[in-house]
């Protein structure tokens, strides 16, 4: 992994978060190279102690947050609440659920009850 071009961007957090480092790397890779997101930044969320990503989707100007996690992880509501706080009070973010074969499914989490747009 050290030789991969995406490694330098995430390396500083891999030691701190060995359990989710792989999910962070895979999500960063997918967003920047596969999905074509712009200005993908790697962040460290303090309250929920997890790494996160922020970037701009193609065809949009707004930057959104992405929280990578493994499929096998046990997620709690306190983690989600902590993530919302750490992200500066945004109303929604994406959760990137990664699997070992590099499949990633993205889910949008919104605060409170939100009607589907269309």
């Amino acid at each position, binding site marked *: 992994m050290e030789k991969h071009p995406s490694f330098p961007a995430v390396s500083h957090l891999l030691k701190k978060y060995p359990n989710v480092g792989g999910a962070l790397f*895979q999500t960063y890779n997918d967003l920047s190279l596969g999905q074509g997101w712009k200005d993908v930044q790697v962040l460290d969320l303090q309250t929920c102690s997890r790494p996160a990503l922020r970037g701009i989707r193609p065809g949009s100007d707004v930057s959104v947050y992405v929280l990578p996690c493994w499929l096998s992880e046990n997620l709690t509501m306190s983690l989600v609440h902590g993530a919302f706080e750490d992200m500066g009070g945004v109303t929604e973010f994406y959760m990137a659920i990664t699997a070992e074969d590099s499949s990633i499914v993205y889910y949008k989490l919104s605060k409170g009850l939100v009607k589907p747009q269309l």
Partner: protein
Amino acid sequence: MIEHQPLPYRPMSRHRRSEGKKGGTRRAENNKIYAHPLPLTFSQTYVTLGLSRHTVLNPCCEGYWDPLTRSVWVTNPKDSATLWQRGFFGKGNISRSEPSWLSRQVNIRKAELSGKVTSEEITAKRREQRKRFKMDRANAIVTAAAEAEEAFRIGKTVTNPIMIPSGATWKPADEAPEKGPSAIPQNHNKQDEGRDGELDDIVDVEHLQLTPQEAFFLIWCFDCLSVLNPQTAEGMPLQEIWLAFQTCYMDPGPSLQLRPDNPFIVNYVAYHHYRSLGWTVKSGVKFCVDYLLYKRGPVFDHAEFALVICPVYEDPADSDSSTLCFRSTQNISWSWLSTVNRVNSQVMKMLILCYVTIPSSVLVSPEMLGSPKCLAYYSVREVTVRRFIPARMRD
């Protein structure tokens, strides 16, 4: 010609009627490319008296073990193609299935040069139209509701209700004139030659990613894959691979004691079981399940079955002492099962609950778990789940 489909839930090929000849050519091509169901092939040599002797041809693929992503990376393009084409092993890490990132980038660059649209652009345009249709429909619903409210308020009925657009008949109202291929000026040729060099500059950063289960199946059953240590680039022996695949799922600590409920072993039991029966087994994360079972492979047809692994502890004490967050049979709720079944029914897949019995840790000691021979103590049972609707399923 319509083929007789005995099972009501087997999905029909969605492309048969619309593609016709084109579909036939593509199917013939696919049958050629994906002719071998497994990486090993046989060569035939004829010796005297017309007797033939077969030798096994081993592609001898190589991959690097990456403990952080818990996967084996196959970076050699030839090995990637071999493993994908012969058995659909692995997944391109920046593609939907087959590693195709490089060809997609090349296509995008070529399209920019020639002015043609890529398939991604066609899909984007279709999605944009679908979005506009949905907005028109939402607006029509709101207007109809407002009209009905107004009419009710003044005590009359609506005489000409507004029509709610349907997907089949909707046309975009203000469609912009179709953009043809951009006119290429005459002196573009020299610039084209320079730009062709740009296509060579794209470095392929994609690899084929194998799960530990896929990698172990290839190593243990066919010996056609060698896994290299990422630091030393030396081949890892089977014993080391078996232990590494288990320890990557365990929390780091001073005493790493192997347990029979290790997620790698439990998943491997199910994977090995269905692969040995001839199914192509792929990840089912997109459908809320563990595995999808394909008859031949993803390029031929959609998966018929969606598999959920339900580990069952032979010894309840093992379940209590487990530090892993497993979805064991105690945690399965009716609402969860109903959700997963509904998701898969909508995509015409049959749900299978695969019960893997985890032997007692008293019976299978940590020493025995140090070798794949302990797999003999695990067993698999299947239960198919189908929603029963009494009013409709009288026959």
